[in-house]
């Protein structure tokens, strides 16, 4: 199931937070102005799209914790390639401020997409009378090679024009994926990323809610 209707509006607060720019920073107003100035260009180059696929863990990807046949949802989301090109262009021209703002805006967009995706998954689970017992992400809960399985299951090449290389790196770079473990318990809906279990302690989005 492909989802393209995200209607993202940049969250200036999140972007500034990602850039370590708080209200006490001497650069706060300048950065805010820059974000405003860049917003039309950024919005034009963001192409948020995602695919969710109800499926089972394949034989070749099965692990002890996630054996073959486990029912899951595979999710792959991307904001497209154009936004990264825009950030690189600013860097090439020596404007690292705009480059960093554009990069942070892409992360903010991916972060915001979660809210829409959460609702879509909730609806689909309700239709199928299924719940979610947990969210599994690379590299903490599942190994990197699971990105290949998610990419295959979501048909990301055809649906989203996302490619993956031998190092399991997706292109566009600003793409995210994860697995939701399904359960018959319809009262269970553990869809949120659990920051407390995440080893990315330096993540700027740690403990920031996407909803």
């Amino acid at each position: 199931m492909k989802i393209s209707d995200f209607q993202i509006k940049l969250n200036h607060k999140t972007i500034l937070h990602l850039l370590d720019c708080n209200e006490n920073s001497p650069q706060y107003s300048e950065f805010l102005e820059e974000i405003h100035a860049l917003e039309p260009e950024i919005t034009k180059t963001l192409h948020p799209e995602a695919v969710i696929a109800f499926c089972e863990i394949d034989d070749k990807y099965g692990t002890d914790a996630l054996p073959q046949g486990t029912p899951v949802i595979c999710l792959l989301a991307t904001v497209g390639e154009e936004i990264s090109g825009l950030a690189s262009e600013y860097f090439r021209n020596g404007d690292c401020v705009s480059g960093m703002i554009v990069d942070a805006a892409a992360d903010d967009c991916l972060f915001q997409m979660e809210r829409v995706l959460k609702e879509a998954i909730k609806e689909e689970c309700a239709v199928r009378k299924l719940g979610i017992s947990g969210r599994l992400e690379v590299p903490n809960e599942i190994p990197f090679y699971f990105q290949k399985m998610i990419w295959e299951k979501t048909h990301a090449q055809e649906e989203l024009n996302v490619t993956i290389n031998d190092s399991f790196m997706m292109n566009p770079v600003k793409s995210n994926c994860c697995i939701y473990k399904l359960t018959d318990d319809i009262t269970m809906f553990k869809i949120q990323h659990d920051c407390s279990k995440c080893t990315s302690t330096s993540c700027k989005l740690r403990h920031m809610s996407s909803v």
Partner: protein
Amino acid sequence: MAITEDISEFLQKGKAKNVKELVQQALDEGIGPKVILNDGLLSAMMIVGKKFKNNEVYVPEVLVAARAMNAGLSILEPKLVEAGNESLGKAVIGTVKGDLHDIGKNLVAIMLKGAGIEVVDIGVDADVQKFIDKAEESNADIICMSALLTTTMQNMKDVIDELQSRGLRDKYVVMVGGAPINDTFAKQIGADFYTPDAASAAEVARNQLLARA
């Protein structure tokens, strides 16, 4: 106050427009481009780098300062070329094979420039040959490698192993960085330095080049 001091002040505040104007004014007044570079731009970037290291300023201040430096350099560079200015040294920088992330690498490249180092940016997904060929071709002093994934960071070792097998290892200072990298890993693969951020990378690179001079 000397105009180079004004340039330095404005650069530290990230005032790109003022820096650009003052660099032009300094050139018009007959001040040598090397003096403007060293006393105005580079000294200011070093101050910003030190303040960042001491947590006196943060990423936004470094970014605006780096942008201001680039604005000044855009005016100064043609004059530096005319004057036959030699940089402190040369660094080849890239993201290793299989990895397409470039933001960290771009930041380091800008900070290296701010430390007076000539940068040869070989982009992302750069294989062993590209790193070594570019380093040899450009007569570089430093090779900087970036990786953001645990699946790609191993490719840094391939570059170092190839340098070793070609008898070139001692010719270059090898620096590594990126989210999954740490000091232990750097030592394991035989790199000379791991630096956790762009400002420290520039500082280490500059110190190494000064020590070599």
